[in-house]
């Protein structure tokens, strides 16, 4: 297909949805290209789930336009359902059914797709095929949910916080499965509040807050635009001798200085010049250094820079 890049799998225009007293989605604009893995990031209550559920045809928007795979929910609902793979936040599948029975049930709803056993093998649950759903671990349940989403061989996969509450090993296992689906060239819309998840899986991300997109781009672009690449975090000083923070801003190569819970966070362009300069400044102020760390900026830092809050605070 020659025009891959120009095709869009999802287009959202001026989308708005309000519940009784909160505006969940407030004039949202978004486009997801066919074949990409798109991440929707934001703290709880940012409107991610509402947005996704509108895209999945589960929630009626108050206003705005939405097109999924070039179709609308108002005129092509049943056709769209056949082509979407959906995994919802905290669905509990029936505990008394076995893994195979569950996937077979979902398979029966789709006109095409792979045999249930094959979908189960795809998420590496073959050994649990005849176990009751109630006996599975959290990670296994999430993989089963993924199998139910994949069994209809979807063109577009919606994953709403797929790894929330899982241990690191289970998360990595799920990431590998999602990456495998990505390699087949199909589209994914993923919501998460784990930055490492978005950085690893997503081609592009949109950061949402208060029902709006506040930043959009590849993870690298966002970090480069909103943060300098390096961060220096340190604690210094004591009750007797406090730190002169404004003086730090004058060090060459320092873009921003913030204090947070007694620690100081500096964004710097080049670590190898900024750190010696910082040490010299502290020596000049005669303030003892108690802790020093450096790290590359992440999407988390982007979010903090944009909103002044942490993603998982609320």
């Amino acid at each position, binding site marked *: *297909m020659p025009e*891959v890049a120009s*095709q869009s*799998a999802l287009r959202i225009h001026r989308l708005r949805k309000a519940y009784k007293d909160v505006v969940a989605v407030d004039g949202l604009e978004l486009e997801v290209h*066919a*074949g990409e893995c798109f991440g929707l990031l934001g703290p709880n209550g940012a409107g991610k789930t509402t947005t996704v559920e509108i895209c*999945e*045809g*589960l929630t009626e928007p108050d206003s705005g336009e939405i*097109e999924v*795979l*070039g*179709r609308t929910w108002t005129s092509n609902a*049943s056709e769209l*359902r*056949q*082509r*979407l793979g*959906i995994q*919802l936040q*905290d*669905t*509990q*599948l*029936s505990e*008394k*059914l076995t893994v195979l*029975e569950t996937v*077979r*049930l*979902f*398979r*029966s*709803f*789709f*006109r*095409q*797709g*792979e*045999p249930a056993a*094959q979908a189960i093998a795809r998420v590496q649950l073959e050994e649990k095929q005849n176990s009751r759903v109630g006996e599975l671990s959290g990670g296994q349940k999430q993989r089963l949910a993924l199998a*139910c989403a994949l069994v*209809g*061989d979807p*063109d*577009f996969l919606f994953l709403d916080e797929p790894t929330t509450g899982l241990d690191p090993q289970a998360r990595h296992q799920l990431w590998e499965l999602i990456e495998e689906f990505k*390699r*087949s*060239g*199909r*589209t994914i819309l993923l919501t998460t509040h784990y930055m490492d998840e978005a950085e690893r899986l997503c081609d592009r991300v949109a950061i949402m807050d208060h029902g709006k997109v506040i930043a959009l781009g590849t993870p690298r672009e966002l970090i480069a635009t909103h943060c300098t690449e390096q961060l220096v975090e340190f604690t210094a000083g004591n009750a007797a001798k406090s730190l002169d923070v404004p003086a730090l801003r004058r060090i060459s190569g320092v873009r921003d200085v913030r204090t947070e819970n007694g620690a100081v966070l500096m964004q710097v362009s080049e670590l190898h010049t900024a750190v010696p300069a910082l040490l010299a400044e502290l020596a000049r102020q005669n303030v003892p250094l108690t802790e020093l760390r450096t790290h590359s900026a992440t999407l988390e830092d982007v979010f903090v820079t944009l909103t002044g809050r942490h993603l998982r605070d609320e």
Partner: protein
Amino acid sequence: MSDVPISGVRAADGSRNTPRGNSFADHPLVQLTLVRFREFVREPEALFWVFVFPILLAAGLGIAFRNRPAEVLNIAVVSPELAESLRQEKLLEVHPLELQAAEESLRTGKVALLAGPGANGAVVFHYDDTNPEGRAARLLADRAIQRAAGRADPVSTSDQLVREPGSRYIDFLIPGLLGMNLMGSAMWSIGFAIVDARRKKLLKRLVASPMPRQYYLLSFLLSRILLLVVEVAALVGFGALLFHVPVRGSLLDLAVLCVLGSLSFCALGLLLASRAKTIEAASGLMNVVMMPMWIASGVFFSSQRFPDVMQPFLKALPLTALIDALRASMLQGAHMAQMLPQVGIMIFWMVLCFGLALRLFRWR
């Protein structure tokens, strides 16, 4: 928008064109119904309440209220002459006692009646007129005394005893229990399952898939009707084998009544579950709706015992209609044409509740 399928983007994938198996088992309605069966069979408590409990109840009540030969009534007598004439009555066991001991026996229920001499050779009966045994003893005692004094009955009477199947308590009970069981199993099975699935957001997940929504509800009705066969056969078979409870009407009529009754209770269960978000809320609603019917629809005793002003309301209840029709069919061998009012009431409830439920139903 263009109709070019996005799927062309994707790398070649051999599994893409595997169509859904054409076998009967892979039809969504069959799969959904199988799920209902599996969930039911894998819940041992449900099996107990639906199949074992009604039979235990019928057995218990059948034994407790079994028909016994007419019992001999104990009475106390304070004068020897009276005792002599009362002993002529075989159904009375006469205890000659001192007045004080006799009164004590009457108070404690050891005797049903105390016969004592009144003024001028009259006889005074002491008894509690709210106690059926007391009233029966009075009639028997009076008859014995009058006959002993030389009364001749102007009309001769004779007894023909009716103790055949069809008019005993167990005959009354089995159709009542059957109706109650159909109500309970229909309402709980549909109500619980739906509210539980809504609570677990499973309903939402199902409507996010291309599942035809009507199949979901239809699978409940189908599984209910199939389980009904076992349920009805177990209870009616138990009654017929152990207590010779008759099934005088046609089996087809019985089947139609059971299916109709069950469907109207499925509709009621669906209505009660159409919005409830928690099991507690749903079971509260169910109990509020079912309790009056357990009491007033004639499961254990005839609904005719309630005051006349209430009768039109009681007759309009779906359980009353079902039980009345079941009794008419099983015990009196009534034809469908004679049960049209009851059938009409059940259809009315079914249509009303399904209509409302489909309007009110929330998938999430």
